[in-house]
């Protein structure tokens, strides 16, 4: 796996293949201009190259342990001996197979930091009547095997190089926690701040692990003295006012409704759209 700055994607964008304005090659343009794709106005460059083999090969993962996070979410620790490693923020594809060969597959973000050799952790919400999350929450026990392929997507990934501003809601905190854990494990100096939204204190995933870098917003019920309500400009604007050198790379993760809301707050507070990376859980 290569780090940002060395990928074809990133160098292509840096080279700037635009031929002027927002439009692509104009009429009568040369052969070189014909191959030009317009310069992006959002964070198109991937952060890393994704290996073909890791993305297309199914590996057996053995459930090593289960940790309850909230009444509705639990962390599943998997032993994947051949795991190629990942960057914080990446996800994988997971599949369960029934006796008759029927397969259910879903994407899950990786919660653990990269340096957990041979192990990865996933945190799953128990979705009502959920086919895959239901199996994990009601049937799965240590020793069970499932299959995974990944890591996937070089886009919603943070190598730990740039200041990172993380906004998440519900289980959207999962890939962001991988970034926070990586930041701590490596004792990185680069600024990192997180704002997470949870319905109530008891539904806040990783509550015991959150530190000074994190602000929590409660939407339905809060501890005594803490206001209840959605994430607003008041949570985001101060972070953008104290921009670190080079500016923030913003990562937004959660439901589509949250992603729309949070990304609009960021844009309104002055964050450039091409420095906002969004992972929507659907």
């Amino acid at each position, binding site marked *: 796996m290569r780090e940002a700055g060395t990928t074809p994607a990133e160098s292509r964008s840096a080279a700037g293949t635009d031929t002027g304005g927002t439009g692509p090659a104009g009429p009568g343009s040369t052969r070189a201009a014909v191959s030009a794709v*317009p310069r992006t106005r959002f964070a198109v460059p991937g952060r890393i190259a994704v290996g073909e083999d890791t993305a297309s090969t199914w590996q057996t993962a053995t459930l090593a342990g289960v940790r309850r996070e909230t009444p509705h979410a639990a962390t599943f620790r998997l032993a994947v001996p051949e795991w190629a490693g990942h960057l914080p923020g990446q996800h994988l594809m997971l599949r369960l197979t029934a006796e008759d060969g029927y397969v259910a597959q879903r994407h899950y973000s990786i919660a653990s930091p990269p340096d957990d050799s041979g192990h990865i952790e996933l945190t799953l919400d128990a979705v009502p009547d959920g086919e895959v999350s239901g199996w994990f929450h009601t049937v799965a026990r240590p020793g*069970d*095997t499932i299959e995974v392929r990944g890591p996937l997507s070089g886009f919603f990934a943070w190598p730990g190089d740039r200041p990172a501003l993380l906004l998440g809601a519900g289980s959207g905190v999962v890939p962001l926690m991988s970034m926070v854990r990586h930041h701590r494990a490596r004792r990185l100096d680069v600024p990192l701040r997180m704002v997470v939204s949870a319905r109530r204190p008891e539904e806040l995933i990783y509550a015991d692990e959150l530190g000074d870098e994190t602000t929590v917003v409660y939407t339905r019920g809060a501890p005594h003295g803490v206001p209840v309500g959605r994430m607003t400009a008041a949570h985001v604007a101060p972070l953008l006012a104290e921009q670190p050198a080079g500016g923030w790379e913003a990562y937004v993760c959660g439901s589509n409704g949250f992603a729309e809301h949070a990304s609009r707050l960021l844009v309104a507070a002055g964050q450039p759209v091409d420095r906002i990376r969004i992972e929507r859980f659907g």
Partner: protein
Amino acid sequence: MNVTRGFAGRPRAADPGLPPGQYDARDEWPVLSAEVTPDLSPADWTFRVDGLVERTRTWDWDEARALPASAYAGDIHCVTGWSKFGVEFGGVSLDAFFSVVRPHGSATHAVAYSHTGYTSSLPLADLTGGRAWIVWEYGGKPLPAEHGGPARLVVPHLYFWKSTKWIAGITLLDHDEPGFWEQNGYHARGNPWKEQRYSGD
């Protein structure tokens, strides 16, 4: 086959319309764009076809809508695993745009680019022959912004990331030039029936 202990899955009937590894999203239409939904009005929308064509051309909203109407009614399939049956998109067939710009014989591939900067890459043959549309209606109503409105590309026989939202143009090329997800490890063609999700599949 690696059977998962105790996994039966939801009760199901074999569904010939469902490609391998997909499930029926029923009433849901998940949104998975990686960028901020742009604030783009029909008045600001344009669509251009350029690259290896006889004559580059840009259409504005009214000009595009004046082309012969064409609709797609059928299924769509997302690489994240959901499929949606019986959707209806209204717009114009890409063939109508191509007949104006006249692609060169040397054109083999295309990059579909968005007003946001998103790109997807695909073989030109997948965009011709009544298999691809520029659409502005969903179920008879204006296409919602989060689903690509005012107008998006729809190439329903490929995974839906190919169907660029907020479509701004298509560049015809004589080689494959990987788009946004294709640079991020996704398949060059993306045929759901062959389960071409990631490059190497």
